């Protein structure tokens, strides 16, 4: 096994391989809340966005909560202390309204999206697009078919204004403002993100898709997404991220709330490839009502620190929750990910499958929380977490917390840590693959059963991303 840590040249090569997301245009923001966070910042955001009063109050209360909560460094990494909230700009916008047709999108924004390959992807797969450029959606489009079915797919700003009667009862209910310091921050300054409502019985055949990217240095992106699948409906949402690299840290702190009503099926897919200076501190949770299903399929590549534990609260009988996740941590990166499964009704079922890969001096952490209270019966949980270490300096740690009370439940937990064996590498190389290619193939094999859960175009991209990350991991 090679002991080489990435040298500067290799690191550079990896960064260059990220060039698809590594560009930015001169910024000309009509609205800029300035650096730092105060009540005045909140008012500025509310004024610009013309928020209704209830939202203004919500934001101000959230700011107080944010300020009163300590950093969770008693259990999380001390690296959080390096976030300087005073130099972050919390709101930027060029003031253009969300547009529905590609022709109406400003040229430089269009060029950015073209370089990200969005138009082709849309033609090929998308039923609707909600692409976030800085804080406002620059482009959004829902196909006629969906509109006919009454599916709402807009940004969160439009959602809270135009569809308040659907939006407001669930907003901040799945993830309360005070859930954690970063959900409070998001609640104070959120902008962008999606609001989706799928009416009763509607089965959306194509995945709805959103692209997010950050374009301004030191600009925290705080999108807020709320998805409601009404009784018996089905929907898949896909979210992909690329970001240009910056010299100073960037903060991304999203809140995503999912609601699956009785018999609904909701699947949320993320492939994320942040540049290695981004703090990615995301709160994602879903509620599954009776016989409903919420699945999180999550892939985390890149970022300086990712903290993300998608959760499902199984509130109705026979509800199901699932988290499938892949994390890849390269040198200078810490993927602190996992899942929260809260069983709150009889005969609920949860499944967690997590695979992590640590490369160079990268570190991956699994934190799992499974909660089954005593008064319930017939609950089941399965948790599998496997870690693959590529280099001698790679790190992994696992913190599973499974609380099961009562004796009418079934839980199962498996964890493994493995390495790509020397004999496997020798075998692959003897067939003509270079050491890097051999390592890539072995790593892709390790995650292959999970990659298959992603839609085709994502799984292809994922394999390519893994290959890029593995370059230079051997030497």
């Amino acid at each position: 096994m090679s002991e080489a840590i990435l040298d500067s040249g290799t690191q550079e090569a990896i960064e260059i391989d990220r060039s698809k997301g590594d560009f930015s245009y001169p910024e000309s923001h009509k609205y800029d809340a300035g650096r730092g966070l105060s009540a005045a910042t909140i008012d500025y955001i509310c004024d610009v966005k013309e928020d209704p009063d209830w939202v203004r109050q919500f934001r101000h209360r959230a700011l107080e909560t944010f300020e009163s909560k300590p950093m969770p460094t008693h259990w999380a990494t001390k690296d959080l202390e390096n976030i300087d909230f005073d130099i972050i700009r919390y709101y930027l916008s060029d003031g253009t309204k969300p547009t529905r047709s590609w022709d109406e999108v400003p040229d430089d924004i269009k060029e950015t999206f073209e370089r990200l390959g969005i138009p082709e992807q849309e033609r090929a797969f998308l039923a609707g697009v909600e692409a976030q450029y800085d804080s406002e959606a620059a482009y959004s489009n829902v196909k006629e078919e969906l509109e006919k079915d009454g599916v709402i797919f807009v940004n969160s700003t439009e959602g809270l204004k135009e569809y308040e009667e659907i939006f407001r009862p669930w907003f901040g209910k799945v993830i309360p403002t005070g859930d954690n310091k970063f959900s409070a921050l998001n609640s104070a300054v959120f902008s962008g993100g999606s609001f989706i409502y799928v009416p009763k019985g509607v089965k959306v055949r194509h995945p709805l898709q959103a692209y997010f990217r950050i374009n301004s240095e030191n600009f925290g992106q705080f999108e807020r997404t709320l998805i409601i699948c009404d009784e018996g409906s089905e929907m898949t949402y896909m979210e992909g991220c690329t970001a240009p690299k910056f010299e100073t840290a960037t903060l991304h702190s999203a809140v995503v709330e999912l609601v699956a009503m009785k018999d609904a099926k909701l699947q949320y897919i993320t492939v994320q490839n942040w540049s290695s200076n981004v703090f990615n501190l995301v709160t994602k949770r879903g509620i599954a009502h009776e016989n409903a299903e919420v699945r999180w399929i999550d892939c985390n590549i890149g970022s300086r620190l990712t903290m993300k534990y998608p959760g499902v609260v199984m509130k109705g009988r026979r509800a199901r929750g699932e988290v499938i996740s892949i994390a890849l941590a390269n040198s200078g990166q810490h993927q602190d990910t996992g899942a929260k499964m809260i069983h709150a009704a009889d005969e609920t079922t949860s499944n967690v499958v997590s695979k992590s890969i640590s490369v160079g001096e990268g570190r991956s952490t699994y934190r799992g929380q499974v909660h089954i209270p005593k008064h319930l019966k017939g609950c089941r949980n399965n948790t599998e977490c496997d870690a693959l270490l590529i280099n001698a300096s790679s790190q992994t740690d696992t913190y599973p917390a499974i609380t099961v009370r009562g004796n009418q439940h079934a839980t199962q937990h498996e964890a493994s840590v493995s390495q790509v064996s020397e004999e496997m590498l020798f075998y692959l190389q003897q067939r003509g693959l270079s050491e890097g290619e051999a390592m890539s193939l072995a790593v892709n094999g390790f995650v292959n059963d999970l990659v298959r859960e992603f839609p085709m175009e994502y799984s292809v991209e994922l394999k390519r991303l893994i290959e890029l990350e593995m370059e230079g991991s051997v030497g």
Partner: protein
Amino acid sequence: MSLVITDLHAAIDGNEILRGLSLEVPKGEVHAIMGPNGSGKSTLSKVVAGHEDYEVTGGSVTMDGEDLLELEIDERSRAGLFLAFQYPAEVPGVTMANFIRAARQARLPEGEEIDAVAYYQELYQKMDQLGIDRKFTSRSVNEGFSGGEKKRNEVLQMMMLEPHYCLMDETDSGLDIDALKVVANGVNSMRSPERGFLVITHYQRLLDYIEPDHVHVLAKGQIVRSGGKELALELEQKGYDFLKEEVAVGG
């Protein structure tokens, strides 16, 4: 045009296993190496293929004049050297079809892609020849394979990669007689004036089906006797014990 091993010395963890081994396998010929356990048979194949656990402490290995010891493991492979492993590694999650395809792709010039249709046609045809079930293509490499399946798989890869020189390490071990015949037929179909074989085996049995041009006896890291195929029969009758006396006398 030959694979030439000259006065090869190799050690693992400071223990010398190969002690001045010399051998020449010209293209078009099949050479068999026989020897007792611990004589250095498997070490020889690993050293020639470039396994990093072994340190070459002397001698040379050339393939058609090219210094193999200067090349990386994968470069030796792409230059035309194939090792059929005695104990092939498992590669979980990687399908056989993708694995062999990746190996073929590695042999193409930059920017050139494999023709998938032609690839599968060829793969299926060779699988049929070796009596391998079609489902095999979507199984993970060697994972859960029986001993016989692993050996057939090695020969399938050898047929798909069309090497110039084939090292076969105890390909007969773990095979029943029917599987042995199938595997031997596969190997025989590859025999050509353009290809050399070095067949390593403990037993004469394999050589009933893959008829060697030359037989060498390896003991204590050296070739102690060479001869025609009748030497294999002699070994079969006398066993390896008589060698000990010869080596003792010679040493």
